[in-house]
């Protein structure tokens, strides 16, 4: 009896020790395994997948950051080589829809509405091809782009259209296209950020690039159920895994602090004092810049 109590105490001690050390951990780490087994991803419920999709950044977040940092606009970052008429497979169409969506967000954010009309017509063609054109309010987007009247409304309608397509695809057993679109948006956003940081080194921007480690696993979870579907998916899964490998040694640590609240203009403002800190060497950043460019350039040239 005494022996059992002793063992129980030891088990409890180690149990609590592990839990405590986990809760005190102040570093973001990838889950143990190097890749997500397909069987595990397949177990995800539609709700879990919807949740992951909602999680991923919107096409305008990186563009907004670039504008906030007063980075000059460059047409060179846009995926102009994408020919909407030459996309032969649903895979290519959905992926390009995502890439062009991120470009549209970038153009709209910088009010380059003339160029955005070209991107918009490619989006329209591709969206119609995969039968999601009805979710794009093209006429309103075009009107707002031409008038340059209301940027907020333009951004709302554009982003809302993408959100609707994503929801529709997932609820109609075309989740693979939704995953491709989300990955397309992310890769293009990542391309924008990495190209800009190469030209205009900036700590805030390089931190944002490093912090993408936080959602990389979710992106892989989204695409994992389709990795064995066909060679196109297999290659994309490998690309995403290669990006993840480049992030393996980038560290994200956290400093502790409690949020501070202030009441202002009838609303509440919460300022977070806890911070995330990215520890990324120049070589690590260069590795991410290089792999992102290689993968993105290959994807957009694959018409």
């Amino acid at each position: 009896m005494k022996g059992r109590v002793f063992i129980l105490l030891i088990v409890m001690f180690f149990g609590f020790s592990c839990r405590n050390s986990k809760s005190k951990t102040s570093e973001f780490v990838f889950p143990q395994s190097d890749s997500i087994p397909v069987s595990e991803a397949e177990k995800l419920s539609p709700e879990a997948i919807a949740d992951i999709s909602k999680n991923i950044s919107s096409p305008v977040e990186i563009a907004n950051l670039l504008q906030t940092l007063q980075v000059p606009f460059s047409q060179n970052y846009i995926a102009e080589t994408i020919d909407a008429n030459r996309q032969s497979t649903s895979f290519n169409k959905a992926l390009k829809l995502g890439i062009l969506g991120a470009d549209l967000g970038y153009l709209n954010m910088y009010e380059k509405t003339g160029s955005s009309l070209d991107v918009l017509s490619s989006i329209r063609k591709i969206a119609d091809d995969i039968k999601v054109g009805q979710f794009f309010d093209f006429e309103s987007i075009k009107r707002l782009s031409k008038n340059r009247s209301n940027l907020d409304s333009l951004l709302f309608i554009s982003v809302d259209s993408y959100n609707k397509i994503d929801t529709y695809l997932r609820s109609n057993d075309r989740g693979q296209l939704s995953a491709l679109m989300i990955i397309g948006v992310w890769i293009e956003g990542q391309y924008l950020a990495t190209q800009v940081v190469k030209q205009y080194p900036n700590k805030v921007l390089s931190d944002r690039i490093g912090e993408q480690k936080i959602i990389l696993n979710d992106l892989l979870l989204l695409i994992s159920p389709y990795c064995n579907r066909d060679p196109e998916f297999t290659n994309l899964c490998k690309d995403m895994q290669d990006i993840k490998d480049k992030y393996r040694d980038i560290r994200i640590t956290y400093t502790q602090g409690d949020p501070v609240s202030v009441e202002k203009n009838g609303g509440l403002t919460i300022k977070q004092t806890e911070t995330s800190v990215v520890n990324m060497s120049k070589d690590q950043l260069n590795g991410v810049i290089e792999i992102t460019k290689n993968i993105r350039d290959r994807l957009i040239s694959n018409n």
Partner: protein
Amino acid sequence: MKKIITTLTILFIFGFMAFGQVTDPLVSKCAINAGTNAKYLKDFRIQLGKAAIQSDLRYRANMSLWKNTKYRFTMCNADNSKGQLILTIKDDTNKLILSSFDKKTGKIYSFVDFECQRSGIYQISYDFTNGQQGSGVGVVSMIK
């Protein structure tokens, strides 16, 4: 003939409703309510019946929020809601970061600004006050 026309009209109206894909007016209204220079990111449409027992907020979603970004969370109620839409945000360690409902004073804020300094995946929860029945929209925007 009259019957055929009526049937066709009904089919047309329902067809339009089903495939027209017009943005929910409450969502657009709520996005506008977020204010000028608030850049829309996402919306959460919440429809809940009366809670059997009052516990944690019932509608939950995850969202990545990024350091050095100011977010505005705006809550809007549909006219037929019995309760008011409230929000809480917790970080990935389950630590409460903000609540739009002040338990001490009973005050409910229709929007909350959040100056994020810790990038991560946050749990965003919504419910209606006192677990009441209601429908509403939570809009997330970026502000300067």
